């Protein structure tokens, strides 16, 4: 488990489990699967790398409502090996596996506007661990991306006979990712920043009338991060060239089933 997740879990679980259910408090735990797709492109727009696969995971969330305001926090963690289809640095096609971990912690608030609408904003810290495995003829890379984001948007809730249905949409604004790269010992590790980015997040959920403690949720995330500038790399302390993170797109479809209390 990542340090972010451990810290959040340590804070959230006692709160969620020890406090009695209260009209102003909400909480939930969900199990989910995330179809993550990461693609990278060279400066000519040609795709260099495509990673894709399903990652199982868990989400914890809690919220406190006071009048028209609701304050909320959430932790999510997804991890699994996904398929890598890319190339060597020299341009030869290569296939492998990427051990991927996606973690995020989110704190924010919502304001009920009326007629089922609410405005929402949240601060989010995202961590993406990407370990591209070597494939026998080529060594892999060990990458970690950290970024801070602002997620702002709207939500709408309906109350049909079937249950409670919600839909939400938000724009995601990201500070430059802080990227740390290891080169399997062939070069010295390096850290550098990418560029600001923006994306979208849309979601929908259903809490069936017959089982209001259940929540079925789907969410789609999309973000494009521009190519970074060049960062110097070294080998045993000696200059060995430069490295850059190509333009990359992060897409994910998350499906989850949760228990609400």
């Amino acid at each position: 488990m990542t340090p972010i997740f451990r810290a959040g879990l340590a804070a959230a679980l006692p709160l969620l489990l020890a406090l009695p259910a209260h009209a102003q408090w909400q909480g939930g735990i969900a199990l989910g699967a995330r179809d993550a797709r990461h693609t990278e492109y060279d400066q000519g727009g040609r795709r260099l790398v495509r990673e894709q696969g399903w990652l199982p995971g868990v989400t914890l969330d809690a919220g406190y409502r006071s009048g028209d305001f609701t304050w909320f926090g959430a932790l999510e963690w997804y991890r699994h090996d996904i398929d890598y289809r890319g190339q060597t640095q020299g341009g030869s096609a290569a296939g492998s596996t990427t051990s991927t971990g996606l973690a995020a912690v989110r704190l924010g608030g919502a304001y009920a506007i009326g007629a089922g609408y609410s405005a929402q904003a949240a601060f989010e810290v995202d961590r993406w661990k990407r370990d591209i495995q070597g494939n026998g003829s080529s060594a892999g890379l060990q990458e970690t991306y950290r970024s801070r984001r602002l997620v702002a948007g709207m939500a709408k809730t309906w109350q049909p006979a079937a249950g409670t249905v919600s839909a939400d949409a938000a724009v995601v604004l990201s500070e430059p990712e802080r990227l740390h790269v290891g080169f399997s010992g062939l070069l010295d590790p390096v850290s550098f920043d990418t560029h600001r980015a923006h994306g979208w997040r849309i979601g929908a959920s259903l809490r069936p009338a017959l089982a209001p403690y259940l929540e079925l949720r789907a969410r789609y995330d999309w973000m494009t991060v521009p190519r970074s500038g060049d960062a110097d790399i070294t080998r045993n302390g000696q200059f060995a060239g430069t490295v850059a993170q190509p333009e990359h797109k992060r897409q994910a479809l998350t499906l989850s089933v949760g228990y609400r209390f």
Partner: protein
Amino acid sequence: MKTRTLLLTVGSALILSACGGGGGGGGTSSSGGAVGTTPSTPNTPAPPVSTLSTITAANAVAVASNAFAATASISDSSSLTDVLTGVSIQPVNNGLVPTVFKLVRHAYEGPSLLTGVVQNKTCTSGGTIAIDATLKNPSMLGNGDVMTMTATNCVENGATLNGTLKVTFSNVTGDVLNSSTWTATLDSVFTDLALASTTNGVANVVSVGGDMKIAMNQENAARNTVTITGSSLQTTAKQNGTTVTTRTLSNYSLKGSTRDGVVTSGSANFALAGNTASLGQFSFTSQNTADFVNVIGKNANTGAMIVNGNASSVTLTALNDSSVRVDFSAKGDGVVTQSFTLSWAEFLSKI
């Protein structure tokens, strides 16, 4: 392990070629007496106007010298025997071809790393090169390999390279990078590729743009043949920041070979236009009439080429490896109007 570079020297050699008209009087061309009038026939089309420059007795040697430079690199022993060792390109005393081929080798060097981040490699003596390649084999050059190399202050062979070169490989047989017997064709496109160096205190920059196809057959360590063709190649040469020459080579072809220390070059055929400080705007065509032959390290000892201008021409003949003869024809009809005999060194300095 013997490395070979393919001959882009001709392309770089094309840097040297240029010569052209400009006015200039003098010479021994005869001028006519009274000009009578002849009734024109209605509906007779006007004769075509030549776009070539006029060669005069005053500039004939310079014209020939510039034209010879276009084939000089093929005659240069180092350029064919071991194309990695360099080609003397005046005023830049570094080979464009071996420098460029070193860049090609970078794509196949070093331990193989998968792509997540993308790496720009260091050049031998400083700077970096970004290689965007599609290779079938990471350790061996093959048919269909395509690479685009963007150099940023890349120092190779004592010269600093900036700009972009795209190369597509075809007709590849054998191991181009590691053996002495192979064939390959390189379709190359230069985009503002600049080669900078300092010679005798003079800062030289040669910029190249355009296309070039190099077909090379390396038979063994001491024998090869090369054919270089292209539709358009533009070169600009600067010295200490001042533009000295600009040249555009059009529809060009050159052939050459090396056999056991003897270099033969010929079959050069090209159109050249541009501007030099000494000649101004110029335009002419050139072709070999006899192959130039030289022993590696020496000037050509035989061979001839003709340069055609507007109703004028000049022929260069290698008398031996010490001297040349330049024959000027004021009317371009093969009748020699004036001849000049000079040393190779003096002739080459007349660019």
